[in-house]
């Protein structure tokens, strides 16, 4: 099995791959360019590493270009990122000049590629200003926003909107994130890659090794939350829910997994609070794992009985998708993209308080058959809706939509 599509076919079913091939056939030979700001790290790079070869395998000539600049450029785009998520930031004029200059230089470097492309997809704000340098572009230009933009800081969005408005279309992950723009706004939900180390099947032996490493008793129930130490993820609420449940189920164990908060002062404060709340309880583990500990997290998710994502505010919540893919029922906060994935009594429970979470943990741990059934439903729901193949299908559909304008039904010959 050499082709990537074939590898995915063994997971999604062959009809899904055939569907992609048929959809892509009339697009063969087209030139497609993605531009983002990094080849390593982060969700966008992760998805492009798989998406670009898949497009090429489908016969669409696809390349991936990267914008890069001086430290000031990244400081500026980091501020953009925070502002889009609603943080009030003050960005110095000099940063904005650097941002525009970096985009201008990149536009010169990529001129030949971008001028000839049939479709250009610009990811997030870093390369958004490239469009300024292609006023008579031949192909269709699309701005793909991966960030939760439901409540952007207006002043910064006003600046960025000047560039974004010039695109032929934009893509947001959820309708709640979409902002008014003078062009079609398409909705494409994120996806997980079932072949990534985070999600591949792993042997029981490896799961046992991880349990041993972190002194987790495989014979006792385990609940888990994987997320940054961030107030919006409510790790303190998770500990509260665990303590409420432990009164009734003394054997319960909780693992909280997050990344190192060294470069995030707010994260460090939250982490300290979590560590204080977790003190003196050997059944409550607070783990700090490096960004590439994918297999370890995979094993921890598989070792758990229930996965929590008790966020107060959430973008899409791909950690929910990952847990569901591993046959786990999820108890999630009633917010953002968690609502699309967690369906009460079917794939898990939506909760609003630690008490609500505690109640559902107890309920599920007392009903192992239901937990199993929910896990199965959760996995199938992800298989049909949130794998990279669906993401790819929607990109292909989008190309036709871009090429055919506003027709509701596009009939290909």
């Amino acid at each position, binding site marked *: 099995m050499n082709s990537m599509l074939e590898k995915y076919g063994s997971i999604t079913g062959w*009809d899904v791959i*055939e*569907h992609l091939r*048929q*959809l892509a*056939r*009339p697009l063969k030979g087209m030139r497609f360019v993605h531009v983002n700001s990094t080849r390593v790290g982060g969700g966008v790079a992760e998805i492009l590493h798989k998406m670009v070869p898949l497009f090429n395998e489908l016969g669409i000539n696809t390349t991936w270009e990267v914008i890069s600049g001086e430290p000031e450029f990244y400081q500026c785009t980091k501020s953009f990122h925070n502002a889009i998520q609603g943080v009030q930031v003050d960005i110095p004029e000099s940063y904005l000049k650097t941002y525009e200059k970096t985009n201008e230089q990149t536009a010169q470097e990529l001129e030949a590629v971008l001028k000839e492309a049939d479709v250009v997809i610009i990811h997030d704000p870093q390369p958004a200003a490239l469009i300024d340098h292609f006023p008579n572009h031949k192909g269709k230009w699309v701005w793909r926003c991966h960030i939760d933009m*439901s409540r952007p800081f207006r002043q910064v969005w006003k600046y960025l909107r000047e560039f974004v408005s010039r695109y032929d279309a934009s893509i*947001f992950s959820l*309708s*709640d994130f*979409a*902002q*008014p723009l003078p062009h*079609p*706004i*398409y*909705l*494409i*939900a994120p996806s997980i890659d079932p072949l990534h180390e985070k999600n591949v099947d792993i042997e029981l032996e490896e799961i046992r090794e991880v349990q041993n490493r972190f002194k987790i008793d495989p014979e006792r129930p385990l609940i888990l939350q994987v997320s940054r130490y961030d107030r919006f993820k409510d790790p303190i609420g998770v500990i509260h829910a665990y303590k409420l449940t432990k009164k009734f189920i003394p054997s319960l164990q909780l693992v909280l997994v997050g990344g190192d908060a060294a470069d995030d002062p707010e994260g460090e404060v939250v982490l300290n609070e979590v560590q204080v709340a977790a003190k003196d309880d050997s059944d409550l583990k607070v783990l700090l794992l490096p960004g590439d500990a994918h297999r370890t997290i995979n094993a921890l998710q598989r070792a758990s009985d229930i996965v929590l994502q008790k966020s107060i*505010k959430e973008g899409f919540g791909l950690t929910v998708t990952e847990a569901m893919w591993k046959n786990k029922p999820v108890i999630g906060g009633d*917010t*953002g993209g968690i*609502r*699309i994935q967690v*369906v009460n009594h*079917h*794939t898990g429970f939506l909760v609003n308080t630690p008490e609500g979470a505690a109640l559902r943990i107890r309920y599920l741990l007392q009903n192992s058959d239901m937990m199993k059934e929910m896990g199965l439903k959760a996995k199938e*729901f992800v298989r*049909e*809706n*949130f794998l990279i193949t*669906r993401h790819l*299908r*929607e990109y*292909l*559909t*989008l190309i*036709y*939509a871009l090429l*055919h304008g*506003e*027709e*509701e*039904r*596009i*009939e*290909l*010959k």
Partner: protein
Amino acid sequence: MKANRSKLEPFYIKDCALIAIATGKRAQNLRELIEHLRAADPKSIYYHFWGGLLRPRFDDPEYHNDFGIWVAHSLHNKILAERLAVIDPVEFDTLEDLRNELIEIIDESLDETEFPTWAKRDDQFEFMEHQIVVFNTMKSVQHPLDFVDVLPRISVGSIFYHFIDGRRRNPNMVDDFRNWLTGFGDKYADLIQMVGEICPYFTPLKELRKELTDVFINYFQDQDS
């Protein structure tokens, strides 16, 4: 049973894929919902009744359209949600008729309500639209009997296009299967009736595929015996 090859045009199997489009129109309570409903493009109404079949959404066993789901889960108005959920779009000749029915039911509920409830700010009803791309699968069926083998293997997108979307394209609002079978005159009248009895609205596409397959299998088994 040996099939009589027909001289009719074959049934060309097509497939489709859908992409959702945000309209930027949002409602936080019933008054806003009704205002937007009055102005919404018909394709938005179509999307909120049928689009759920082809986009990432859990098949809600209780409420079958986006309006019912939102009213139940975000406004917690179970009475109205039930009234909305029971609307079967197949019963309406046009999307305008369907829109009027929706407005009437919501209006009636507003008359009965002292204080309209509000959804959370991040849980508003988002009006959406869609575009559908239809493409050839290079497969075709020459005779109705061939569907026995072909139907289990066609995609859910094909089921959507031929069994649901077809009703908007064909005379008398029939699906593509019945439309094609009608070309044989009265020969398949019973089969046409059996296909017509399958409810397209309350059944997920995978189950629809199975129900359709079963209908063709049962029909031709009966012909054999």
